[in-house]
């Protein structure tokens, strides 16, 4: 076991635990924001750099601080380690820089994006971003593409978190989904635009933190905050059959996997459950799903922006 102190809170965790997992064990604001890490995907994390923290003391054995900020999702704790997240102005400033990089080429088409309201990039931007970008060049654009008949790829919105690539690698057989090209013209693609044809490919939609991979069967049906999430299950031979239904009235608009408080899937579901069972009668309803993860909409984050007009409304 290792004792680690993050922003003044101490926890004891098994050896080999990452700083991020230790911070999540403490909970609340202490946990750094993440975009590319996903607890159910092996080798995820390390790419986006939003979860960076400062290690001010390496361990009891070697108390030297680490020379650079580290990605908390890929750095293991040591006994006696001391970490600063929100208490380090350096971390907050560097994170603000990362948000600026991530948003630089992002189209900010939230008003017409199906992900709006449950988008990790929106949340990150509100919580950690600056008020405006200093990037004043044309943004890069790509054509929209279909990945099979159920999933649409809006590459403009992609932040190259590699989560969907890991779903393809780890859940789907015969790897045909990956990254083409390099640098800032990298693009998610399937092998010569082959449809991803696999029972579990739909999980890509769930892991995509932004609106780059969306469910075509839900496209433009409703803003998510007008839907009612309900936990439900059915007997399924391919997966656990445990899902969240997103209902409007009696209609099931969308089926997704259940996500934990960090917005990461609890279990993977199959495409049968996700795309082919859109009637309430297909499901045993368990009850309303509590959405733990705060989102822009639920938390009224726009109040924080300091726009006087909204301030007035608040009182």
């Amino acid at each position, binding site marked *: 076991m290792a004792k680690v102190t993050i922003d003044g809170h101490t926890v004891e965790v098994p050896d080999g635990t990452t700083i991020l997992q230790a911070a999540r064990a403490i909970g609340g604001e202490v946990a750094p924001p993440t975009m590319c890490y996903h607890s159910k995907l092996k080798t995820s*994390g*390390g*790419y*986006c*750099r939003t979860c*960076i923290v400062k290690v001010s003391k390496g361990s009891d054995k070697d108390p030297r601080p680490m*020379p*650079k*900020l580290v*990605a908390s999702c*890929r750095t293991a704790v040591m006994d006696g380690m001391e970490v600063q997240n929100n208490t380090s102005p350096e971390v907050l400033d*560097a994170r603000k*820089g*990362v948000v*600026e*990089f*991530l948003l*630089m*080429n992002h189209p900010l088409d939230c008003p017409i994006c199906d992900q709006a309201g449950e988008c990790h990039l929106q949340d990150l931007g509100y919580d950690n971003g600056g008020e405006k970008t*200093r*990037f*004043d*060049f044309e943004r890069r654009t790509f054509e929209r593409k279909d990945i099979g008949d159920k999933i649409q790829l809006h590459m403009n919105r992609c*932040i*190259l978190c*590699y989560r969907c690539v890991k779903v393809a690698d780890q859940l789907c057989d015969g790897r045909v989904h*990956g*990254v083409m*090209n*390099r*640098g*800032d*013209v*990298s693009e998610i693609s399937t092998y010569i635009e082959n449809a991803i044809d696999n029972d579990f490919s739909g999980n890509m939609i769930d892991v995509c933190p932004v609106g780059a991979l969306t469910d075509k069967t839900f496209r433009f049906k409703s803003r998510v905050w007008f839907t009612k999430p309900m936990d439900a299950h059915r007997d399924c031979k391919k997966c656990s059959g445990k899902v969240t239904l997103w209902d409007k009235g009696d209609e099931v608009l969308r089926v997704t996997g259940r996500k934990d408080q960090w917005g990461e899937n609890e279990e993977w579901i199959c495409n049968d459950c996700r795309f082919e069972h859109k009637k309430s009668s297909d499901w045993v309803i368990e009850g309303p799903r509590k959405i733990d993860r705060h989102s822009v909409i639920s938390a009224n984050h726009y109040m924080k922006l300091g726009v006087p007009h909204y301030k007035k409304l608040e009182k």
Partner: protein
Amino acid sequence: MGKKLLIQDDKVPGIHTLEVYRQRGGYASVEKAVKTMTPEAIVEEVKKSGLRGRGGAGFPTGMKWSFLAKPEGVARYLVCNADESEPGTFKDRYLMEKIPHLLIEGMITSSFALGAKTSYIYIRGEYFYVARILEAAIDEAYAAGYLGKNILGTDYSLDLYVQVGAGAYICGEETALLESLEGKRGNPRIKPPFPAIAGLYGCPTVVNNVETIAAVVPIINMGGDEYAKIGVGKSTGTKLISASGHINNPGVYEIELGLPVEEFIYSNEYCGGIWKNKKMKAVVAGGSSVPILPTDLILKTAKGEPRLMSYESLSDGGFVSGSMLGSGGFIVYDEDTSIPMNLYTFNRFYHHESCGQCSPCREGTGWMEKIAHRIVEGHGKPTDVDLLWDIQKRIEGNTICPLGDAAAWPVASAIRHFRHEFEALIPKTAVAH
């Protein structure tokens, strides 16, 4: 004349053939190593020699070798990094092209020391003709019994392969190289684990630069202690320098470490001074990634001591007033060079070569290029120089691999030492936004 240990025979006719190479004493280190030495004894000699990696980072080679994990029944690999893509660096090409057997000899001796039974030379795609030269030399070495089963009648066997890359700078980063060698996209891996524990195909692996491996040959022939007497301080031995830019004699030079920079630039034995009787403005001493230094700081340290061609002296003063020996890509600029234009060229390179995995490097390199372009085109904004500074700062130290740092350092140093040149290009009428 300084001592030469690597390319002293580069002008000997036929030196690329096994026959001539052997007449000049070639393959003696293999004879000595496999017949009279234990692997541990070779590692010990390399440690004693003080040899430091010639690929850029300067990590002590003997120490790197001793970190190699040796679990029972698991293969170990030696991989030679011949990706040489750093702008300004072309010394490995010269060595391989002229004296291919020197690298092959170094690979055999080093593989024996590390217990590798299969080794690879990963060479950049643009060097396909050099790959052919290496392959021809490897065939000769197999035929002469230096490679293959039971080398020179001992029970040591080794197979050596040349793998040609597809032309990506990032595949010179050692873990991206290993990914590429495995047939995958050349993305750097997130470390740990380091290659010494889990490298090629997950097995313990040593990755070394061409020149590092070649230097093992004289080290084994003369002994580590003798080698350590050459050079200065912790910069032992000789170093190949690829000299380019506005000098009279561009080319590849083997120098004894510790040679004064001034002598290297102005002596006729080396660069032969600045071309067209001009004055020198600046030098990039170790390949495009290292900080650029103005004339006064490259010839003398901030303390006023003569700057030497050594790891320590070139980095004296840190990044405030110093630079790095890096890969030995020595680029000299005359008084008429536009530093912002040069920076823009470097920015384009790093933008083009970023693999795109981490957001600061993927997005930041392109952004810096766009700003530098606008500045050199004469439509820079008054805030642009500060913005460039800020972007490089947010990339440095916050990426998976050192390419991010390599993209940031040239920007920081160009602004640090030549800010006035950037400001002079920004129109006076431009208004801040």
